[in-house]
């Protein structure tokens, strides 16, 4: 019996349970109401319907989830018990390859066998799959019936079905909210675990302070020493995300926010604000392509024309410029908020002294809004250093420690992508290094965010 069929069947059972329980409750309650006692009836019939339906579905669903996870093991066991399995090779890899092939054929995902051994196992596999498939389906249906019947017998006019259903609703809301925590824990745990394994192969000091990055040589068997010095990556990340991108984004974002909030007519503001925000909505892969296709070659030609050495067709400047443009809306919306949070009375006070608008902005509004703006810039930096596609497509792979913006540099995110795509061997230092880089990135962005939010919060409080 196939999975979708069972689910459909269960859903049908649930619906039947709902309808019949509701009808029964309605009938009983009509009778009970006739007695005239005010507490004779507790919940609306619909709640009885839900109560029984949930009792029908939830135990069966829990069983199925468990079953889906244990059944493959049981199937394999019974196949191995088959005489045809005696001729299987003992070493794990080819053994599991043959078993996998037999399973694929048996479940219809593959037409023919490459390995003659697996052909012989197809029949036992098919039998075992059928056996356990039917067993699981029957058990699930029995559970559904049992749960539904149990709940059905509890229907009474004054049964507190609503309270129970609501308790379940509350529980599921609580469980849903736990997913955020589980995800966070999952991120931290997986990064820590894989990094831990990496650092058992590579000295953390070498990783954090080494200046030579060539994981390729480590993969080729030259050893892990001297291959995982991540300083060039850190520098490239900072150079592009925190320096070049910010040199573009801070003035443009700040001045745009100032112009749109302080000078522009409402019509201009109404149209230009969403237009600028579109810059943040363009997918990063589009920026990356644009940087690689249009900006980078133009910059290289320019650099060559003015005689700069080491100009490359992939450059820190191309990636940084485009990333800066992408960040403009972040900076401008944070600046917008911060300036708007400065009380109007400050502006009035300055204008009443005879200051011009720009003097008011430069000498009163910006200084007053500075913490908020700084917080916004920190958030923008955290966003920029975590950005991946632009740098993957436009910054290059050369781990250079250079301050020449026309040269190619590489970043943490670029290297994560580089290390984890293509042929991977799990457990190799090269693959695990990606997680160590991810851990560093995670910690740094987290710290930046915490600091930024602190700063912004303090600043907001100052004007409350």
């Amino acid at each position, binding site marked *: 019996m196939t999975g979708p069929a069972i689910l459909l069947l269960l859903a049908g059972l649930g619906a039947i349970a709902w309808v019949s329980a509701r009808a029964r409750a309605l009938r009983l309650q009509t009778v009970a109401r006739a007695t005239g006692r005010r507490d004779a009836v507790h919940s609306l019939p619909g709640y009885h319907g839900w109560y029984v339906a949930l009792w029908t579905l939830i135990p069966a669903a829990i069983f199925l989830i468990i079953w889906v996870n244990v059944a493959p093991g049981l199937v394999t066991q019974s196949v191995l018990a088959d005489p045809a399995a005696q001729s299987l090779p003992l070493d794990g890899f080819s053994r599991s390859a043959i078993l996998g092939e037999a399973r694929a054929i048996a479940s219809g995902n593959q037409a023919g066998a490459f390995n003659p051994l697996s052909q012989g196992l197809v029949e036992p596999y098919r039998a075992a799959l059928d056996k356990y498939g039917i067993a699981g389906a029957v058990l699930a249906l029995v559970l559904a019936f049992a749960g539904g019947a149990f709940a059905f017998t509890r229907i009474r006019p004054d049964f507190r079905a609503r309270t129970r259903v609501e308790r379940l609703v509350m529980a599921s809301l609580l469980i849903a909210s736990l997913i955020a925590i589980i995800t966070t824990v999952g991120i931290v745990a997986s990064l820590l675990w894989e990094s831990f394994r990496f650092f058992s192969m590579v000295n953390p000091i070498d990783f954090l302070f080494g200046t030579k990055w060539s994981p390729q040589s480590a993969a080729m068997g030259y050893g892990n020493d001297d291959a995982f010095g991540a300083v060039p990556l850190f520098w490239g990340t900072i150079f592009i995300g925190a320096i070049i991108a910010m040199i573009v984004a801070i003035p443009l974002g700040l001045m745009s926010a100032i112009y749109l909030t302080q000078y522009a007519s409402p019509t201009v503001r109404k149209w230009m604000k969403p237009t600028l925000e579109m810059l943040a909505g363009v997918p990063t892969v589009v920026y990356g392509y644009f940087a690689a296709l249009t900006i980078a070659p133009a910059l290289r030609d320019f650099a060559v024309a003015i005689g700069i050495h080491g100009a490359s067709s992939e450059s820190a400047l191309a990636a940084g410029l485009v990333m800066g443009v992408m960040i403009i809306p972040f900076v401008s919306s944070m600046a917008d908020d911060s300036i708007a949070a400065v009380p109007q009375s400050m502006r009035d006070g300055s*204008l009443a002294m005879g200051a011009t608008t720009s003097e008011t902005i430069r000498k009163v509004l910006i200084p007053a809004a500075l913490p908020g703006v700084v917080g916004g810039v920190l958030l923008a930096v955290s966003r920029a250093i975590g950005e991946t596609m632009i740098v993957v497509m436009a910054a290059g792979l050369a781990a250079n420690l250079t301050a020449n913006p026309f040269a190619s540099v590489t970043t943490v995110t670029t290297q994560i992508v580089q290390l984890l795509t293509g042929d991977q061997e799990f457990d190799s230092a090269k693959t695990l290094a990606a997680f160590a880089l991810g851990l560093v990135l995670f910690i740094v962005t987290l710290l930046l965010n915490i600091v930024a939010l602190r700063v912004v919060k303090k600043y907001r409080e100052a004007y409350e």
Partner: protein
Amino acid sequence: MTEEQIKLAIENPKMSARDVKVFYGEKQAIKGVSIDVGMDHVTAFIGPSGCGKSTFLRTLNRMNDTVASARVEGEITLDGENIYAPSMDVVQLRARVGMVFQKPNPFPKSIYENIAYGPRIHGLAAGKADMDVIVEKSLRRAGLWDEVKDRLHDSGTALSGGQQQRLCIGRAIAVEPEVILMDEPCSALDPIATAKIEELIHELRGRYAIVIVTHNMQQAARVSQRTAFFHLGDLVEYGVTSDIFTNPRQERTKDYITGRYG
């Protein structure tokens, strides 16, 4: 202009308004007000809230320019010069006609920098020493010097409410204005701080033409020599303060000062 108002027209007015109307979009907030403000008096604007006192006060230094929907008609002169004429420079005007707001609004800068703000932007100080002199003089005149002279570099926002308001007065004084407009300067202050400000207004009188908006009639009686009563955008009555309070000519004025509405 009514008869009484013409009688009150001042020989050599510092500022005078003739048939001033103010609109916020479609809505008219001031309906044709004519008044003279003299150098030698403190002039009080009283009236129920929403009657247009602040609106009218803000026309006197063109702060209404900062409200996009506001439109001013009529003529207002400063020393005979129309302040709404194209030749009038608003930066200069606001330096000459200073303003103190209802809620103290010191800048989030040091006390020193708050006072120095105006002289700096207008380029009134010849150097650091000169600025020091201006700051001290302004703080003395604002009656704040003795309280803050040891902590000039603390933030202005760390002062008490009354001190903040005197700081704002000192900030306005620092550019040597000719007129000072005060919009309910004491309404956010406690009685002791209020008394200090009133005392200060007494001392400043004669040096500057002072216009003060207040909803507190005792305060108007205490600090002003001329009082104008506004109602629903009209200037109902304008006269010598003691006359207005003891012998109002208009029914509406009487009703207001005897507390029948407002």
